[in-house]
């Protein structure tokens, strides 16, 4: 089963300023699509529209051939969106933060039993992968900006979603982390997933990478 997100004649106007007009997009399995454009060209707005957050657009969105309105839940169940803000509560530890995200994707994380232990193990593994082993129980507020961003990135391995929409995911991450994340994006595309990304970071050329210019 391959996924496919299509936009037809997408136009977005915010406060009478036209961001883009008549945009046609086809995003399919096995692709990394990089949205490019100068500041203020509507990259974030486009990602918000494509991830179903922003609804004041004109045109049509299709998810696997069906109109977005009718398959919203299915779409959201397969979407992982990371915005400018990491979405990490500073009062909670990385483990607790991830537990909430796990629950939102429909997996039971609290309580006792083997399911809960499995969930906890998955969280620990995900944190280890982003290099946060040993920080599992530190309140996220005491972590650096880059570490908080890594907690958010741990969701990529924690909750398997086919479509990743990442708005500037490389912000505040060190060189080592950038390389690892880049490898992860490619692996995801190779595995049949799909990545939609904006970034100022130069992505290494790859046959999977496609660029779309705005503005």
């Amino acid at each position, binding site marked *: 089963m391959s996924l496919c997100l299509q936009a037809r004649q997408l136009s977005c106007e*915010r*406060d*009478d300023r036209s961001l883009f007009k008549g945009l046609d997009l086809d995003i399919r399995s096995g692709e990394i699509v990089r949205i490019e454009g100068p500041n203020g060209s509507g990259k974030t707005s486009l990602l918000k529209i494509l991830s179903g957050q922003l609804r*004041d657009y004109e045109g049509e969105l299709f998810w696997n051939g069906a109109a977005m309105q009718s398959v919203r839940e299915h779409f959201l169940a397969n979407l992982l969106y990371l915005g400018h803000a990491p979405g990490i509560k500073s009062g909670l530890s990385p483990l607790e933060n991830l537990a909430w995200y796990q629950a939102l994707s429909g997996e039971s994380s609290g309580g006792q039993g083997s399911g809960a232990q499995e969930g906890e193990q998955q969280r620990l593994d995900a944190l280890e992968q982003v290099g946060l082993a040993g920080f599992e129980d530190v309140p996220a507020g005491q972590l650096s900006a880059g570490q908080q961003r890594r907690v958010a990135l741990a969701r990529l391995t924690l909750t398997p979603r086919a479509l990743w929409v990442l708005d500037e995911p490389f912000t505040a991450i060190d060189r080592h982390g950038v390389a690892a994340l880049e490898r992860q994006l490619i692996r995801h595309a190779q595995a049949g997933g799909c990545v939609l990304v904006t970034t100022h970071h130069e992505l290494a050329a790859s046959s999977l990478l496609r660029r779309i210019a705005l503005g």
Partner: protein
Amino acid sequence: MWAFIHKLGSPKWFYGISAKLQPWFWAAAVLLLVTGSLWGLAFAPADYQQGNSFRIIYVHVPAAFLAQSIFISMAVSGLVFMVWKIKVADMAAAVMAPLGAAMTFVALFSGAVWGVPTWGTWWMWDARLTSMLILLFLYLGVIALRGAFTSRDSASRAASVLAMVGVINIPIIKYSVDWWYTLHQPASFTLTSRPTMPTEMWLPLVIMVLGFYSFFIALTLMRTRSEILRRESSKRWVQELVNGQVVNAQAEETR
């Protein structure tokens, strides 16, 4: 059906049709308001109990009617805007809010003035006046919320939601305030509940109410038209319209 709704929603179409409708409503407003006030203030008989001071009813009641109606039309416009994304509806809602607040204030003020001869004081926590006061706060909330956003699109949506929430609450508020008032003070003498009002007294009142409504419609049309020009100033048809008028004016001058 859809084509019709969208045609209705097109600012350009609305601008055209409102230009045709507007003069009729202005004429009706002037005619009704002049007739109503002359009749009500000069010819209607004085009240046997309140004397001439009852004549303030001809301002107070229409203003109070309008104050509530405008809130409802504002909420309906907001609903139309949210459901069908019709921008004209939001422009109308935006110009209605200050007008509604003004009407509420007029109703409150005339009520207070009326209170002096009837109650001997400027303010009584009368059920009707209290509801009006709360309505004024609701209006002020909608206006303040619209003004607080930097993005006009968000402001429009937020104001629409608040207007809808408000309109659901208005009957609840009105009912609870009435209940509260009767509990604390058995209604001995309320302003406008007169079971038997002679025809010569209520007919001018009806005319005044209709006049206020015509005035409201005419003013809303006019202000919505200028709001359309303001918001659509970057659109081609507006620029053509403005340029066309400039060209006409120049032609007039050279003639």
